[in-house]
């Protein structure tokens, strides 16, 4: 960057930022709508990821570069990977898509549409009265850290308590008493080998199979 960029360059940069803001916002809104209407769960998740990336660009154009990076790293890069992971593990097939199609009747949209339109009216009202916009300036990461561990310390502590509680809960649910002894194959015990007369291929053949 030049030490003294001309007025023209600054103006151009600002117009480009405004364009980027609106394009990213449009991408985020459209991909969220597509996410809601997809029948295939993985496709819906992919649209949600695109929507989160769009929101990250919106944050960046508003000057919150640090928040934009965290949005990508944590939401798009970690939480959504876990969602995809779980969906992959469930391995839903074509019947899941059919079930989804039966569930997504026009009637089911009524409630969410009413609630969402109330929110939209509120947002329009708030935005109408608000001033300013993109000229808030960039916020460096250091300032975010100082704000978080200064005036907002209690919020950070509460969030970490909540996360710790979640972690302990997950640990409790996932915990099971693991048998310390490694399960050996039938042929791996000395008695079995003795029964088979040292023949490893036949070892354990006198015992009924473990699986039906």
């Amino acid at each position: 960057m030049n030490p003294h960029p001309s007025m023209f360059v600054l103006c151009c940069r600002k117009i480009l930022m405004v364009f980027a803001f609106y394009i990213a916002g449009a991408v985020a809104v459209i991909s969220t709508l597509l996410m809601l209407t997809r029948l295939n769960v993985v496709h819906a998740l992919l649209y949600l990821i695109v929507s989160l990336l769009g929101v990250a660009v919106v944050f960046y154009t508003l000057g919150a570069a640090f928040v934009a990076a965290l949005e990508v790293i944590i939401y798009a890069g970690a939480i959504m990977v876990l969602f995809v992971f779980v969906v992959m593990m469930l391995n839903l097939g074509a019947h899941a898509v059919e079930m989804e199609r039966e569930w997504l009747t026009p009637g089911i949209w009524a409630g969410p549409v009413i609630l969402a339109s109330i929110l939209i009216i509120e947002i329009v009202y708030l935005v109408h009265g608000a001033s300013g916009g993109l000229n808030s300036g960039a916020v460096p990461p250091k300032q975010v850290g100082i704000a978080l561990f200064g005036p907002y310390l209690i919020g950070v502590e509460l969030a970490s308590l909540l996360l710790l509680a979640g972690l302990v809960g997950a640990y409790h649910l996932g915990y099971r008493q693991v048998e310390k002894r490694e399960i050996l194959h039938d042929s791996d015990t000395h008695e079995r080998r003795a029964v088979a007369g040292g023949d490893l291929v036949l070892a354990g053949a006198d015992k009924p199979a473990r699986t039906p």
Partner: protein
Amino acid sequence: MTSPYPILSILGIVVVAMSIAAFLIWVERRLLALWQDRYGPNRVGPFGLLQVLADTIKIFMKEDWVPPFVDKPVFILAPAIVFVTVLMSFAVLPVAPGIIVSDLNIGLLFFLAMSSLGVYSVVLAGWSSNNKYALLGGLRAAAQMLSYEVFMGISLMGVVILAGSFSLPSIVDGQRRMWFVIPQFLGFVLFLIAGLAETRRIPFDLPEAESELVAGYHSEYSGMKFGMFFVGEYMGVTLISSMIAVLFFGGWLGPGLPGVVWFLIKTFFFISFFVLVRAALPRPRFDQLMSWGWKVMLPLALANLLVTGAVVLVWR
């Protein structure tokens, strides 16, 4: 400090990164051969240098087949993601003073963000292939890369504390007196291991373990789509090696030679190290991999961060 010729640096870095990645295939095969007492590819061109070119021509001629049972849009998208995310990371890489595409003040976070998005390529390839081996490979990749990404980020925070910035050129500038590998040796080791896991190189190549999963997540890929995964892996190796050089070994700093040369020397040193690791180490079991990541590496990374923070607080 953006480059005076942005288009030139973008083109330069893309072309150089991609040619180094392609050239690496030959380097790796020759080096592996050297360490295993054989010749490696030595027939096509001088020293077998044109082997990569011959392979590329061959792979372009091959049928690029999309099996009928796959989820077609996701199947085609997956190999593109690995390429795009790695190339985007090269944008914040400072090769020499002034040779950088974009000096973001959150450059390091941008690199971490792109490497966390890179997971999707493998995961979606595994899922969209609609094949049990590919799915298992994708599941393994998701769990592995998520686990190793956590302490990859934390292991770099020591460097950020010492340099006082997320911007990569400032991190290099902060190493004028001393390379960060000396105060941050633990961070360097942790980042190296996390980098190996993120690029899915041999001790950590469980997502494509050929002895148990056919070829893992790319079992169903053929032609240049497979080639994209292959070159993407080598671009990842180049990226991680150059990141190690920038973050811990002073990037372009060095006596006598121009900055670019120092940067390339350091990067090639770590690329060769990656190849040596591949030649030397066996593959662990998957549960060993996970418990190693969460029970050993993550606490070590957190301890490193804590100690570095405390020392810096007392020192200043």
